[in-house]
């Protein structure tokens, strides 16, 4: 789960969700599917929306469903509207990056091509977006679990 938004809310909310997902596994002996976790997260966010203080976080949740045998990506904004999408982005950078993704994304891309596409998006932001974002960490989620990939440094990209 990648979170952005109000400082404090990001850590508190993401840890709350992560620990509850882990608790489910401890109680029931099997893990929540990505779809169930995303819906649980949406429910928590929607309930907090109409309570005394809302969590101001935007999230992307990614997971691999072992039963359905496919990877899933969920976009959730701070109002708790959720959509399953092939690719997505939050923040001002999304205005630049979604166009890139629309043009170059293919549903059957390999991991290497996906990583190249991420680099292309970051190159785009480095070139056209006024806020300096020098480094991006990358994680790959597949049937074998979560793998840390090489971080992408904006300086090293050919712009």
């Amino acid at each position, binding site marked *: 789960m990648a979170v952005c938004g109000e400082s404090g809310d990001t850590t508190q909310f993401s840890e709350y969700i992560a620990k509850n997902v882990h608790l489910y596994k401890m109680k029931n002996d099997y893990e929540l599917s990505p779809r169930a976790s995303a819906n649980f997260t*949406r*429910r928590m966010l*929607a309930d907090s*929306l*109409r309570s005394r203080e809302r969590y101001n976080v935007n999230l992307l949740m990614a997971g691999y469903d072992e039963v359905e045998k496919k990877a899933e990506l969920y*976009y959730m*904004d701070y*109002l*708790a*509207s*959720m*959509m399953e*999408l092939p690719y*997505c982005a939050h923040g001002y950078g*999304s*205005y630049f990056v*979604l166009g890139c993704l629309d043009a170059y994304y293919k549903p059957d891309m390999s991991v290497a091509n996906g990583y190249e596409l991420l680099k292309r998006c970051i190159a785009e932001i480095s070139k056209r977006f006024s806020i300096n974002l020098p480094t991006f960490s990358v994680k790959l989620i597949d049937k074998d679990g979560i793998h840390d990939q090489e971080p992408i440094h904006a300086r090293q990209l050919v712009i």
Partner: protein
Amino acid sequence: MSIMSYNGGGVVAMKGKECVAIASDLRFGIQLQTIGLDFDKIFQAGPKLYVGFPGLATDTQTVHQRLKFRTNLYELRENRKVSPKVYASMVGNLLYEHRFGPYFVEPVVAGLDANNQPYICAFDLIGCANAPDDFVVAGTCEEQMYGMCESLWKPDLGPEELFEVISQALVNACDRDAISGWGARVYVIEKDKVTVRNVRTRMD
């Protein structure tokens, strides 16, 4: 910037001869940015009963889930499927419960009752029901849809003609609204089947 036009979208429902059709656009956007192209605002509530929730996307999902909870309990207690009039009453009730902190959706209910007679009903965000004999519209492009429906709709349309009429009404209305469109899905409910069709629209 109004809350009801934060996400955008539109839903229309029309009565025909022993059939009813309900249609929605498929855009999921945040103000003027389009995020997703498969956000259907229509959900199935019974074998011949569908409901659409145009408005704020988070409330579309929340109200659908809260209503599903209530209809599940109804079906367990009463041991029968909920009828369109009863379902509409439940929708109005749920919305008025939140009279002073409302859900920002304007639901549209469409279905066939036990005698296969068509029933449509639309609500405002606080649960005022409107169940006319012709068509109902809701969403950011409702004024455009009123114009299209008023000119195209006739009483006693068959299922195929109803599909044509409702598709043209929705597509042309969405073409005149910047935050609606990007695809459309139409459900035609007849006594023995429900046909779901995706309509090709301008993707802008």
